[in-house]
């Protein structure tokens, strides 16, 4: 069987959703005019948990004796290619980049629609994503995609095993973990506990340059332009205010009653 983007159909096809986000450590701002995140003026990186998702896909491929292919799927502006390259240099096989002006400002619901449309064009057994993105922090993508594709959702995985036609995870909970199992194909989200992402190797960086990267417009993926983008978004940021500047600290002078004063302060802040 041929997959849509060339190459022999290998035994397992894994798609990893990777998002480019503003550097977590940089100061992030919303734009005054359309109240969307100002992505142009900050350093960008791969969403941190997505690195764990890529690592897990590579591990599953290794566990399958290499009999699997790992495809990176990214929706984002042209600049997101840098992040895609990083995932390829870690060892992913190929990438699909959905990039179109019409998508700018899409909210989570629209994004899941667009990504599901691209997934329709791919062969996949497993879709892996990080449990949240550090910019929007919605943590809903796996659930939205499961709903749209009609595939089972396994969220919050701290361990994944694929056995024949089944995938089994340990789902991280507050007290321990649940074991969740589903038939493939399935949608999976991972938490940071799951692994330790590798550094790309220098050879991986060089090899990444010649790996297949397919760029799609909304039209290519059959995405209806009036269902995406800021103007059509079901949810809008109406108003925002910047974080108040830090106030000067309160100094507690110890006159034999320092402990009690500190306790009073903590109680007043509802910390104790």
């Amino acid at each position: 069987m041929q997959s849509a983007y060339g190459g022999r159909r290998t035994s397992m096809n894994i798609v990893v959703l990777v998002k480019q986000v503003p550097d977590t450590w940089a100061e992030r701002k919303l734009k005054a005019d359309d109240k969307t995140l100002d992505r142009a003026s900050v350093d960008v990186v791969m969403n941190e948990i997505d690195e764990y998702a890529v690592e897990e896909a590579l591990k599953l491929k290794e566990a399958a004796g290499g009999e699997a292919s790992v495809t990176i799927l990214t929706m984002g502006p042209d600049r997101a290619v840098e992040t895609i390259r990083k995932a390829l240099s870690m060892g992913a096989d190929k990438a699909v980049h959905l990039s179109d002006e019409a998508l700018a400002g899409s909210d989570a619901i629209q994004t899941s629609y667009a990504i599901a449309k691209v997934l329709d064009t791919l062969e996949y057994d497993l879709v892996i994503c990080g449990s949240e993105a550090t910019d929007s922090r919605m943590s809903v993508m796996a659930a939205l995609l499961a709903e749209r594709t009609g595939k089972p959702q396994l969220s919050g995985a701290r361990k994944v095993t694929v056995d024949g036609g089944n995938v089994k995870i340990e789902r991280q909970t507050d007290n321990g973990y649940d074991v969740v199992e589903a038939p493939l194909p399935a949608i999976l989200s991972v938490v940071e506990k799951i692994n330790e992402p590798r550094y790309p190797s220098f050879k991986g960086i060089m090899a990444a340059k010649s790996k297949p990267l397919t760029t799609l417009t909304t039209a290519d993926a059959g995405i209806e332009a009036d269902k995406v983008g800021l103007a059509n978004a079901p949810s809008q940021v109406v108003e925002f205010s910047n974080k108040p500047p830090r106030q000067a600290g309160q100094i507690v002078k110890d006159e034999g009653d320092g402990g009690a004063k500190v306790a009073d302060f903590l109680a007043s802040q509802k910390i104790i």
Partner: protein
Amino acid sequence: MPPVVRSLPSAEAEALLELARDLAEQELAPRAAEMESRSEFPREVFRTLGKAGLLGLAYGEEHGGGGQPYEVYLQVLEELSRAWLAVGLGTSVHTLSCYPLAAFGSQEQKDRWLPDMLGGELLGAYCLSEADSGSDAAALKTKATKEGDDWVVNGAKAWVTHGGQADFYNLMVRTGGEGAKGISCLLAAKDTPGLNPQAPERKMGMKSSHTATIQLDGARISGNRLLGDEGQGFRIAMSALDGGRLGISACAVGVAQAALDTAVSYAKQRKQFGQRIADFQGLSFMLADMATQVEAARALYLSAARLRDRGKPFGPQAAMSKLFCTDTAMRVTTDAVQVLGGYGYVEDFPAERYLREAKILQIVEGTNQVQRIVVGRSLTGS
């Protein structure tokens, strides 16, 4: 710290430097002070570098190297040394230790051992110095005698970087008469019976890099481990050092850059007489001089590296570079301590560590007096 502004020859080199910086910031810098204080050798860190492909950068891709010019490889060393000299210098010494085989080994020897040596899992050592022969290396006494097809080695190599940690050792040994022409180079595996690393030296700085004497008590090394010809060992050792000295230069610039970064950021925060000390012209002139020297040192090692990359003779330029870069590191790290005042002299700040690290670079791979001898001879003949 802001990245150093570099002009790199290719997009590939840009990506490589970015990888080196990521590794330096995330894997080296957070561990350096703590492991230095315990004199602990960072074997795992070298494995991480090896996996990333950083332990064979300067060698050809046919044996698993990175195929990078010295101009690029050295800047990677600089970034590593900026975070932690023990690791930057270790990478340089490992690279130096692969050179005798890569440049003088037979095809068969290279096919057999080089891929593992460049592959990132193994670490190398280079054993030239002895207790009684340092600058006068050609006076070495460790003796190898032929028994059947094997060499049997007796003596001791001193000051071996990675001694007791390395997987392979280049041994410069006497196989013939007195002087440079009686020396040969053997490639010994760490588990050779009779090759006995002694306890590491207790050093002033760069403590995480272990330096030890290797005692050789009838160590039997197979004849097919002779690199180059019998009697060619001194030439091999010296030509390896030409490249090694560029490595030390880059390490020195890394340490100097780290000291400069520390001094600048401190000067912008520290207030005296109601203003930032950076705003005293007397102090800012000091920072300006430090920065200028660092930039000049970087330009000098890169200029020598480009000669090497283009296949031109570069020995005297490598000596000038080693001399200038390491003297610069000594001056700049001393001045960085001065900028921090009392805080520069205590272990809670890294300035004093940089100063202790800079000092070793004026001594290893030919003292700076020896570099002047090399430069002087290139001008006037010997």
